[in-house]
């Protein structure tokens, strides 16, 4: 089978990939520049803008907040999402079809609308602290990823294995931890990673959830960019890209990156 592609198409694809990767290379270059303004190619190499991140209290604080929120919301989403995904695969016939629609609702409703509604109803009307509202918002944001990824890995699971364990006298909880969970381990890792990175990068929900001393890193980045035009934001961006590379390596190890193309 010849897989010939017109040379013009190949040329176009090359341009597209330059377009995709180029801007990120420029950010890395700008982060390494010794100048106090953003420039590319960098003039003089320096890591001082990376040090500067940690000298600004707002960055130190929001990095910690973002990591906490990401861990908490991903953890909660896994705890409630895994049983939900299990129920929808195992008891599909016994459950109504709208249930799976319910779990994709957070994707369907614009994030901005969700963020604003949470602010209005949860944070203001029921005076739930901003920090907890943030965790709630991010849990909703990442729940569809968790349910979808875990469902995908459960689709390959042979439930008769689990029935065998139960009929041999294994209690349900023990069966869950010793039979089911090890079988969907790569799915759980992938769900965790995708949820975590989605939470870390979120703007549209977090933008409504800022209070005295509470904000997330992307919101702080936006605020800093609007006030200063120095390479600090570029160096934070590089840190986030390093995190992304680590995430991709883990996804590649567990599921293979082509999983994301499905």
């Amino acid at each position, binding site marked *: 089978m010849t*897989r010939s592609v017109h040379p013009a198409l190949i040329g176009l694809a090359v341009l597209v990939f330059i377009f995709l990767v180029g801007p990120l290379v420029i950010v890395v270059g700008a982060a390494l520049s010794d100048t106090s303004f953003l420039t590319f190619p960098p003039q003089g190499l320096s890591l001082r803008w990376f040090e500067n991140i940690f000298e600004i209290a707002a960055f130190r604080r929001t990095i910690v907040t973002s990591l906490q929120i990401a861990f908490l919301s991903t953890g909660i989403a896994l705890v409630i999402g895994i049983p*939900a995904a299990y129920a929808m695969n195992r008891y599909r016939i016994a459950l109504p079809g709208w249930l799976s629609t319910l779990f994709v609702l957070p994707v369907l409703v614009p994030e901005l609308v969700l963020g604003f509604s949470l602010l209005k109803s949860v944070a203001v009307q029921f005076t739930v602290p901003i920090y907890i509202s943030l965790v709630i*918002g991010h849990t909703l944001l990442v729940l569809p990823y968790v349910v979808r990824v875990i469902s995908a890995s459960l689709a390959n699971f042979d439930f008769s294995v689990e029935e065998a364990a139960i009929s041999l006298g294994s209690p349900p909880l023990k069966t869950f931890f010793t039979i089911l969970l090890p079988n969907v381990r790569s799915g759980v890792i992938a769900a965790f990673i995708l949820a975590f990175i989605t939470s870390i990068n979120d703007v549209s929900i977090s933008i409504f959830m800022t209070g005295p001393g509470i904000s997330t890193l992307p919101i702080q980045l936006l605020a800093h960019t609007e006030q200063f035009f120095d390479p600090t934001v570029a160096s934070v961006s590089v840190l986030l890209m390093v995190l992304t590379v680590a995430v991709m390596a883990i996804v590649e190890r567990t599921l293979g990156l082509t999983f994301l193309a499905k």
Partner: protein
Amino acid sequence: MKRFAGWTLASPAMFVVVLFLVLPVLATLWTTLTTPDGPLATYLAFFGSGFRRTVLWRTIQVSLATTAISLVIGFLTAYVISRAPGWLKSILIIAAVFPLLTGVVVRSFAWLIILGRNGILNNFLIGTGLTDEPFAMLYTQGAVITAMVYLFVPLMILTLAGVLESIPDELLQASASLGATPRATFLQVTLPLAVPGLIVGAVLVFTGSFTSYATPQLLGGESVMMMGTLMYQQAMVTFDWVSASTIAAVMVVITIAIVLVMTRLARRLNPMAV
């Protein structure tokens, strides 16, 4: 028994979604219908304001332009990827996934460095003598569309690469052995089979652009106000929550209508489904 077990396991997630998503969003929509001036007053005010109509129309234009450009670029690139040898395919997919996993702020910020008054593009244009004065490229509709295409092309590539990948090779071989030129095979076999994927990709990109916030905020500012930035401004700067809720309602209705209509269309146009 089975029914009970299923409900029990699904109920915590169900509870969270209903309590913290369905009810608050319904409450937001409800406030727009229960103002003292009557149920439709806020909508009449929204569509009666020339400024808001402009913002809505601009948001539609920017989203349509972003979707159209992303469709063309994404489809052609995905086509090249689907025909690339295995090792190259993985590299190209990684190159597309990486920007996708990098946050929207970082990716929009990159365009701030490129398009700024003292940005790379202006420096380049002045350096090569093509112009003496820097162009004002930031805070234009073009800047927002460029950054949004940058934002959404990876999503389009991945969606369409998956679709093109799933077209059985035998179909293309059959077409070729029956005498079709590569061009005819592309137009009569590959393209029709990719239509549902193209629709799904277009819906993702359109709804994503239509409800975006960070990119229009950073690259469009006050002069290229879009629905997302207007809603934020109404909610958090002028604290007019009824107006913000109205914008939210317009966004929800348009988003859900497009998703429903287009997914139905995608199903109908799928040549593989009989």
